[in-house]
């Protein structure tokens, strides 16, 4: 992929493949920016992804804390609902979901892709719930004696305590949101609002056989996730290992 992205047009389909391109054509990368508004797509992608990560971390912590620490009658229902949402195919809720956002007049805005993450996702709640349940009751009692209400206890004690799980969740969310294709495909039609994957999808039909440009674009889309993954690799693998997903 990287190699092709640096080739001159005529050398792309040459067989045997040239592993080291010659000449090295850096301008393929510049071409991507000229052919489509990749700068704009990158900006859109980052806005959505960053909002998603913040939304997921805050809302999942809050909901998981509520479910793990307090008893109330509808708790069981919520728990079952959480498991059910993991099972239900996206396609079933897709059309009504689209209808909801359409009737809010929120197509071609960031909202459909951001707001749901501020309401808590099942996966994150599940992870954090397992974690909070594994903390001791004494910790909560101690915080009460020190004069913390539940709200302060959550943000001052439990939120920082779950740093490891939260960073794994942040990485998961980042990667999911960054590569999300179907969401933007449904809700964003205006080219101004496109995210990177969507830009790449339409670039495919636009540039046709200019593989070198396409590969350059693919490298651009992949790079941020790879960088995040390399930095977060340790948390990522250990985050899964340490969170009751062990079964």
């Amino acid at each position, binding site marked *: 992929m990287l190699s*092709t992205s640096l080739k001159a047009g005529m050398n792309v*389909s040459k*067989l045997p493949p040239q592993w080291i391109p010659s000449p090295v054509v850096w301008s393929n990368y510049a071409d991507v920016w000229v052919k489509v508004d990749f700068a704009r797509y990158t900006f859109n992608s980052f806005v959505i992804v960053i909002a998603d990560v913040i939304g997921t971390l805050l809302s999942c912590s*809050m909901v998981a804390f*509520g*479910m793990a*620490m*307090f*008893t*109330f*009658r509808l*708790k069981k229902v919520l728990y079952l*609902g*959480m498991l*059910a*949402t993991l*099972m*239900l*195919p996206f*396609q*079933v*809720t*897709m*059309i*009504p*979901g689209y*209808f*909801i956002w359409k009737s809010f007049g929120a197509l071609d805005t960031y909202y459909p892709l951001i707001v*749901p993450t*501020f*309401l*808590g996702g099942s996966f994150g*709640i599940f992870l954090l719930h397992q974690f909070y349940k594994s903390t001791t009751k004494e910790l909560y009692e101690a915080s009460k004696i020190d004069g913390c209400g*539940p709200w302060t206890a959550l943000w001052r004690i439990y939120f920082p305590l779950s740093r490891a799980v939260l960073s794994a969740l942040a990485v998961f969310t980042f*990667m999911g949101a*960054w*590569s999300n*294709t*179907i969401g933007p495909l449904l809700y964003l039609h205006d080219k101004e609002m496109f995210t990177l*994957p969507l830009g*790449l*999808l339409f670039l*495919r*039909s636009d540039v046709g056989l200019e*593989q070198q440009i396409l*590969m350059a674009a*693919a490298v651009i*889309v992949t790079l941020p*996730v*790879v960088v*995040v*993954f390399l930095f977060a*690799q340790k948390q*990522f*693998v250990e985050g*899964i*290992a340490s969170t009751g*997903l*062990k*079964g």
Partner: protein
Amino acid sequence: MRNEARWGYLLTLPFSLNLLVFFAFPFFFSLYLTFTQWDMFNAPDWIGGRNWSRLIQDASFWYSLRNILLFAAIFVPLQTILALVLAYFLNQSIRGKSFYRMLYFLPVVTPWLAGGTMWGWLLNKTYGMVNYMLTSLSLPPVDWLDSKQWWLPITSVALVNVWKGVGSSMVILLAAIQGVPKDLYEAASLEGANRWSVFWRIVFPLVSPMIFLVLVLSTISAFQAFDVFLVMFDSPNVVPDSKVTPNILIYKDAFLTTKMGYASAMSWALFIVILAVTLVQKRFEKRWVHYE
């Protein structure tokens, strides 16, 4: 209301809203839609079971079910077995362990659009790398993605999907294998058990609940696969029956031709198939999954 319950409701309020607005309402609304004709601009028009009877006679829909079943039948077992083998070996003390972990996990984080674009190019009939290697071994080139044989493109895509997904299953299984107590290995080697029986008698039973989880998760994801088909084949409105999958049909009917009612009926049919397959897996669970 007791203070504690009040805090419980308050803190979980966002998620309750989420469940009601984005799951419960869509769930029932989409069930209702399966009995209607709807273009999303006018009010839904009740037509009774007509969508369902049309569905049963729709050849494209049956092709799509056939394709997705083959896709799942190749993808799910292959991915699970491969993930288990990789996790088992990566748990041994071998050199460059974290390099290998990264190697297998990299595809997971690569967005489908980028990974699929790459594979489309590698598998290309005339200038793809895979066929180049075949011909240099003096084997005939294969038309991976456009073959007349319907099963071949589906198989190719299923294999690409394994490339993409095996890392995530592997990480989950690796975590499970790391949870196997060390003294069990020692006891086994004292009794003179070889590697093979250590794996089958100790590791496999202890890890089996996680294997089951991975199996169920990858089955659900196989039936919901969308991106992979979107990037490996042509755009959704021109995919031929031989390569169509339920999700492509649903997307096409709902958003390209605005037949919301019919698309909802298809999504419910897909849901029923997933549910049935999951229940079958659950039935066989007792046969081989071992809980402490």
